């Protein structure tokens, strides 16, 4: 995994969030979040529906506009109005619950369009990189298919390959397997597992507790817009300290 940013070293902060608040109108959805992901770390965010997990994740690349606080991505404050947001976003891969592949483009074009338009890569290079990533997610040969002709699991793997084709420094996942049929979940998790093994920095909102336990370096439990508890997966999942964590885990495990 080559980082496009020079000087990014394992152990350094990939994402650092300080005192993040986010309102939707009068509704305070994030109530002072402090949080970080180190280079090469896999951090899993769990918590009940409506607790603010997606909002937190989406603040990192500013798909949601934070109300106040600091969000450093590789040391750069993404809330700074001077910052080149598109450039930062191109270094942060994002995978959505609903895949969001571009339905009017072939799989290959889905993987090359941002390489061409954002990274200014030539056609041959972009295609070459796209092929490599399709292979990585187990979908070599699907280059000419349109998204509608793929299963949900295949679409999500294409979405991962699309994000990887930008050679991102880190990846954000928002419940990547939640809209998949149970028998298709495994393939996607396996791809994510491989990514983690390759050393990719990952922030994963998920309900897959086994994935969090086996792959995560850290688990963060959110409820009501705050981080209630965080720590090593086995500690948080097996031996939660807070009542709210216990109540949540007793429901999902």
């Amino acid at each position, binding site marked *: 995994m080559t980082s496009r940013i020079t000087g990014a070293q394992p152990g350094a902060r990939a994402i650092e969030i300080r005192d993040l608040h986010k309102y939707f109108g009068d509704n305070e959805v994030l109530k002072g979040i402090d949080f970080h992901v180190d280079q090469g770390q896999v951090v899993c965010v769990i918590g009940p529906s409506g607790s603010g997990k997606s909002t937190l994740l989406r603040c990192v*690349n500013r*798909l949601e506009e934070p109300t106040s606080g600091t969000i450093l991505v590789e040391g750069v404050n993404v809330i700074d109005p001077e910052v080149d947001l*598109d*450039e*930062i*976003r*191109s*270094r*942060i*891969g*994002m995978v*959505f619950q*609903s895949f*969001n*592949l*571009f*339905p*009017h483009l072939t799989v290959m074009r889905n993987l090359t*369009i*941002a390489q061409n*338009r*954002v*990274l200014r890569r030539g056609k041959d290079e972009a295609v070459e990189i796209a092929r490599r990533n399709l292979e990585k997610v187990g979908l070599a040969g699907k280059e000419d298919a349109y998204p*509608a002709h793929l299963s949900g699991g295949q679409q999500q793997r294409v*979405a991962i390959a*699309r*994000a990887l084709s*930008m050679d991102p420094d880190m990846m954000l996942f928002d419940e990547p397997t939640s809209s998949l049929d149970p028998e298709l979940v495994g393939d996607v998790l396996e791809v994510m597992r491989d990514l983690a093994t390759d050393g990719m920095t990952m922030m994963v909102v998920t309900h897959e507790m086994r994935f969090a336990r086996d792959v995560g370096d850290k688990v963060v439990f959110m409820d009501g817009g705050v981080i209630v508890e965080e720590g090593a997966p086995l500690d948080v999942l097996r031996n939660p300290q807070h009542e709210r964590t216990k109540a949540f885990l007793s429901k999902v495990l």
Partner: protein
Amino acid sequence: MRRTTRHKVNLGVLYTVLLAVVLLLVLLADWAAVQENFFDPEIAKSLWPEIITVGAKNTILYTLVAFFGGLALAVVLALMRLSPIAPYRWLATAYIEFFRGLPALLVIIASGFAIPIAFGWRPPGGIVGAGLAALIVVASAYIAETLRAGIQAVPKGQTEAARSLGMSGPRTTIFIVLPQALRIVIPPLTNEFVLLIKDTSLLAIIGVAVGERELTTLARDELSLNSNSTPLIAAAVMYLVITLPLTQLVAALERKQQRAR
């Protein structure tokens, strides 16, 4: 009575009424007068080939100009309408509401007579150019609303995915949103096209040169010339030959989109 029996009786009554009306029409109508005034073969022949080479040709030409001119303007209006910058939104909304609220005929008269007289404006392409400009202006207001609906029908996740890859706002619009929006609006746009075909007949209000007449102008001139309505029927047939396949096409496209859902 059982339900099926009653149903049959009802149907029987309806058919009887229909038959009675048709019979009455056939008996009462003055068929000789109808034939003489509307279906005179000599006059029909005399329309040939101008009805195609001038009338139908100009109707189609004017429709194409008004449609694609309107479409180009409408893309700008729709994007303004959805702009985060408020004054752009206000301008576009004002324009759209203004021209959708006026009869197209009024706009054509304004563009063809009122504005040239008041400001000494010499419309490019003469009086036809002025009429077409009016049609473009009016069509763009309707098409802009159709486009706006299409753009808004593209799921928000599409924009988010593109932006998360680092694509800029304008690139996202051009490469991701607009192509999908256009696909969504092809059936309603085809409908706009059919409406425009018929609206070109409004150009009959502004007198144009002989070679510039579209179907309705041509038919009206021939009608006065011959004191006979056969040209009207001929024009009607021409319109239907053009519009019916298009409305069928719209229906087919809509069925196809329904299936793709």
